[in-house]
């Protein structure tokens, strides 16, 4: 079974792109399943179900969904194997732009959209910077100039990635993208022993542990202070 991880800011078009891409894979007799990771709520599982795709969802609740992802990915892989999938896709919404669920030697796709603003590529951390393929969506509604500027910003932030445009509504570009997803040589039986591409943040402060009171005396652990430019300088 192949494993491919999709990530990207909320509503960037991940589900739309995955659905169109699976459509394009259909003629190739590849059994695809999806697991969606989210925080509090997702409807995506119903969209996949409607398309006849085996799907599971995992909600992390009060935990960071990417941390939750790493803690559960092995079980998810075993679910995929038990269901005889040829290709298992995970979809995670990048919520704080800081974590990323990418694993070394496992194909990593970042989906971002043209509407998010040209400074967005700079604001997204490892999720964009360490992806193998960056898919840019919603090109149908912005001008050619904006598409070009946006793509060049993506390229500056992650020059190693392949950058492709896919339209989540019409599926334009999805066939081409689908040819890059499955590879007979990349089968895995487990992800045990593999490593994340980039560490999750070392942040562990009192608020991570449930503190609700505000004030210096309640701030323990890894605390960073804002630099307002006067006495701290």
């Amino acid at each position, binding site marked *: 079974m192949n494993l491919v991880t999709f990530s990207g800011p909320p509503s960037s078009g991940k589900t739309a792109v995955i659905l169109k891409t699976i459509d394009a894979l259909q003629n190739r007799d590849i059994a695809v399943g999806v697991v969606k990771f989210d925080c509090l709520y997702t409807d995506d599982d119903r969209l996949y179900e409607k398309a006849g795709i085996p799907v599971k969802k995992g909600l992390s609740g009060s935990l960071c969904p990417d941390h939750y992802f790493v803690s559960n990915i092995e079980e998810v892989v075993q679910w995929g194997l038990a269901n005889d999938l040829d290709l298992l896709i995970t979809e995670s919404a990048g919520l704080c732009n800081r974590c990323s669920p990418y694993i070394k030697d496992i194909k990593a796709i970042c989906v971002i959209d043209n509407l998010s603003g040209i400074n967005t590529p700079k604001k997204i951390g490892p999720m964009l910077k360490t992806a193998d393929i960056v898919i840019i969506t919603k090109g149908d509604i*912005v*001008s050619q100039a904006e598409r*070009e500027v946006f793509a060049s910003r993506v390229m500056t932030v992650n020059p190693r990635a392949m*950058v492709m445009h896919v339209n989540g509504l019409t599926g334009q570009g999805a066939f081409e993208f689908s040819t890059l997803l499955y590879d007979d040589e990349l089968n895995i039986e487990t992800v045990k022993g593999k490593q994340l*591409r980039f560490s999750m*943040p070392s942040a562990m402060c009192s608020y991570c542990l449930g503190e609700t009171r505000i004030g210096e005396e309640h701030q323990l652990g890894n605390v960073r202070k804002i630099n307002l430019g006067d006495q701290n300088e």
Partner: protein
Amino acid sequence: MNKELKNMKIKKILEKYPYAKTFLEDQQLSIDDQELTISQLYQQLTLEQKEDLGLDIKQLEASLDNYIEQMQEFIGESDDNNTVQSLTILAGKDKDEQAEKFAELKVHAGEIISIVGPTGSGKSRLLADIEWTAQADTPTERSILINGQKPDLSWRFSGGKKLVAQLSQNMNFVMDLGVEEFIRLHAASRLVKNEDEIVARVITEANFLAGEKFSADTQITSLSGGQSRALMIADTAILSRSPIILIDEIENAGIDREKALDLLVGENKIVLMATHDPILALMGDKRIVINNGGIEKIIKTKDFEKELLIKLKKVDNMLSDLRNSLRYGKELTDNPNLTS
């Protein structure tokens, strides 16, 4: 990272590859101390800064390496021998697996090809085949040649280098910028040398195409439909890196379509135009008829069609005069050229 780069001080890197500054800035790395190498710079970062960078040293070095490689290629492209002179489509098959009824279609820079056919007939697939430089590896099994040869794979995968630029009715400007600022941003991303001159030219040409003039400091989001269209076309003609321009209909309002096509052709673009408007379609040198997923025929625009085009333009002008009269509250009068 290549050895040379690895041992170079930042100062040297910036001297040799000035654009690397953008890369380092976008990674939010300080380049105040230029006597360091990249790995020394990385070692000086605090744990927090390393975390914010989101790359480890290997990833950072590899990224810079790739960036420089792509930019070098980008700059080299402006040489004449690298331009796209022609595009060739080699026939594939339609939805019923029947061979398309042509062998090959070669289109040269500066030509306009119209594409006609019912919705869902396969226009998007044809475009996608061109954009992907298909090598009999798409559902239509068509192949695409560039300058008569099998194209370089970088047309497929490189973010900045795309074969086809697209203009369609649904596209809007979404950025919050003035016209000049916006065009400047585009020019900067292309690393053009004579930026002022080029930006001024885009704005002049756009005004030449637009029915109503606009100034360089107008917000792009407040341009009228016709003005937006005019700016998009002028910008794409002059600043887009893509040698092929696909136009999906141009509504006949607030923009001189013939001048727009002249501008694109003058910039040596290959223009593909999906349209059902007879005036636009006949402006093409040829038209491709698509049906059932395949190219059914290729029609060279006939002389009598060109004559018809002249008459159609007259009718068109008449209509737009009437529209203008209507807009300015005049009474509409009969026109002697109209026969009943």
